């Protein structure tokens, strides 16, 4: 049976993609940012996930003002890196996991989640930057990816409680898939940032660190944070953090935090990153 073993959270800041693509990720001035992913790069080589369910938001790339899905799941065979206005990132095409994706989609819809099914789209930095930060510069991505795009551009985004519930439903769906697959769920976006208005540049380090602390065991409380409170406390784009709750919901109630990294600033944004592993996956299925 397929199994979710681990998950991670990470910002998906476009500047990180630019740095990597220009071959400057080993430059000394960027070391405080990239060094925090050295552990991750070693860890993922041991973990060897077959499939990553990658939760991100589309930034007016695949979706424009005509159609804005709250939850869009990619059931396609592959996804090309998008041209976001300065040429597509020179990274490999993303291979989908259509069989598992359709299984999850069918299960989610029957569990009462109103998924938008996507069979063809390009994927922007929200999806490809996390892949680059975790897998580094590679010829082929070493796993299949199921993109899960969450609307965080148009107000309102889905609530934290809805995102947490979606994560739990994803776990239930994955565990019913008959193939032996090592599946990870990644939540991306955040941490605090605001890209508009006089208040642009807002960073709330205290809020971000408390969020990372609480995500391990007090995630039900985090799920109650409203979008307005996210915006007030951590900036308009700080509300991307609901996507980490999908990741959290997909893991067991008991997880071990095996890595954490926090750095300010990257461009306009606070960078956050952590890794969870389920503790004794088989035994302790709590938190429902």
């Amino acid at each position, binding site marked *: 049976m397929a199994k979710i073993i681990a998950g991670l959270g990470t910002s998906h800041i476009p500047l990180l993609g630019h740095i990597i693509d220009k071959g400057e990720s080993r430059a000394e001035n960027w070391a405080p940012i990239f060094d925090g992913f050295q552990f991750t790069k070693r860890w993922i080589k041991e973990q060897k996930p077959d499939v990553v369910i990658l939760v991100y938001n589309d930034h007016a790339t695949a979706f424009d003002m005509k159609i804005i899905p709250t939850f869009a799941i990619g059931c396609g065979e592959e996804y090309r890196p998008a041209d976001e206005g300065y040429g597509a990132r020179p990274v490999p095409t993303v291979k989908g996991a259509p069989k598992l994706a359709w299984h999850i989609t069918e299960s989610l819809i029957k569990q009462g989640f109103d998924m938008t099914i996507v069979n063809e789209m390009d994927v922007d930095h929200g999806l490809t930057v996390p892949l680059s930060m975790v897998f580094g510069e590679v010829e082929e991505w070493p796993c299949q990816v199921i993109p899960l795009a969450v609307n965080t551009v148009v107000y309102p985004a889905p609530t934290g409680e809805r995102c947490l519930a979606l994560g739990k439903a994803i776990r239930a769906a994955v565990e019913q898939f008959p193939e032996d697959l090592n599946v990870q769920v990644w939540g991306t976006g955040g941490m605090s940032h605001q890209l508009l208005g006089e208040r642009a540049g807002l960073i709330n380090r205290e809020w971000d660190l408390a969020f990372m602390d609480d995500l391990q065991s007090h995630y039900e409380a985090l799920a109650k944070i409203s979008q307005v409170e996210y915006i*007030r406390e951590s900036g308009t784009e700080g509300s991307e953090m609901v996507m980490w709750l999908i990741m959290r919901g997909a893991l067991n109630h008991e997880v071990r935090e095996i890595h954490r990294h926090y750095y300010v600033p990257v461009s306009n944004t606070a960078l956050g990153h952590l890794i969870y592993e389920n503790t004794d996956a088989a035994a302790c299925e709590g938190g429902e």
Partner: protein
Amino acid sequence: MNNNNKPYSNIPGTTVFDGDMVRVGFHLNQFCMSLMQASNRDAFKQDERAYLDQWPMTQAQKNAVLARDFTQLIALGGNIYYLVKLSSSDGLSVAAAVSTMTDLSPEDYMEMMRNGGRSPAGNRFTDHRESDKKSSKEQQ
């Protein structure tokens, strides 16, 4: 502008991209989206006014595009993820474009970010008497 009487109307220096803003900014944002294609970027650069006139935008929106007035563009329904397609086609970094909306020069903005960014203290509520209230009472 259109964020009046909303639970987020008392957040200073912030425009939430809600349904009202989507309605006002629809064509402005779709214009920005068109700049994702190189051929459209070329046509826009050739004759900005003529390219803009193909879109059912308001005169104020067109003028704000020509002036690259991002504060105004946000007020007229622009969304930052769409607007960066305009600034990117000018070769501007996101941070540089964003800084123009603040009271800081691009250099001072970068300096503020290097020093840990803008503090939330005093930036949570427009009415400073409210700022002591726990914002955690806010509902979903």
